[in-house]
């Protein structure tokens, strides 16, 4: 999809549809939607620098008990993860109010992995959400 803010909603609704078909409960689907939105926004803003000529790729892999999503951009990837956001520091002006996307991604899915692409391109974040084990 194009590197244009707003298009993350396409990925959100597609992932939500797949997750619903897989049997995820609604709360988990909402978690996934927010996580994929943040991943796409990061790809659009930071990976592709809002360059309309570049695409963000979203791959969905529905496994037996887990949904894996990859969000791919043409950026160099993350060398280090930013520190955990601190609301007290934000309120007191010691930290930028922004910068919570990666924290939310990690908090809302079961696995999150950022992979820098080779040759400084095609970096991606890999997200995994697992189905709840069936009730015995």
């Amino acid at each position, binding site marked *: 999809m194009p590197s244009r803010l707003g298009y993350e909603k396409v990925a959100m609704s597609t992932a939500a549809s797949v997750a619903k078909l897989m049997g995820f409960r609604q709360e988990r689907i*909402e978690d996934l939607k927010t996580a994929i939105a943040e991943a796409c926004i990061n790809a659009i803003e930071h990976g592709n620098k809002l360059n309309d000529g570049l695409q963000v790729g979203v791959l969905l892999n529905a496994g037996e008990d887990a949904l894996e999503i990859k969000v791919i951009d043409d950026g160099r990837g993350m060398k280090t993860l930013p520190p955990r956001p601190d609301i007290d520091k934000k*309120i007191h002006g010691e930290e930028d109010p922004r910068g919570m996307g990666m924290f939310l991604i990690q908090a809302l899915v079961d696995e999150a992995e950022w992979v820098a692409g080779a040759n400084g391109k095609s970096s991606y974040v890999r997200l995994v959400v697992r189905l709840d084990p069936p009730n015995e």
Partner: protein
Amino acid sequence: MQTETKSKVEQISSSAGHPVSVLRFEGDIASTSKEAVLGAYQALSKETVKLILLDFTKVDYINSSGIALVIQLLIEASNAGQKVAAFGLSAHFTKVFTMVGITKYAGLNPDQATALAAL
């Protein structure tokens, strides 16, 4: 693609008779919502407005940029000695707001009546 954020301000009174300004938001809250969120807040008088409610009942989608705008609002309110409470967030976004720690600076309530009582 993002639904434009609409906002409006209403003046109500608390049960104790204190004036309360309610900022009602509608649509998506994202990076493009600065005018609707911060603009609406900044139009309030910092001298006379001391109690503020944020109404998220009609908000469909909030991303981290939108949350950052809410935090900026809370920063300015804190500096102005204003008390802020919020209501109407979905269960999911209540969880997200709690995760980022906003509850330390603005209570989250299920509805307007509860939020008013908490102010």
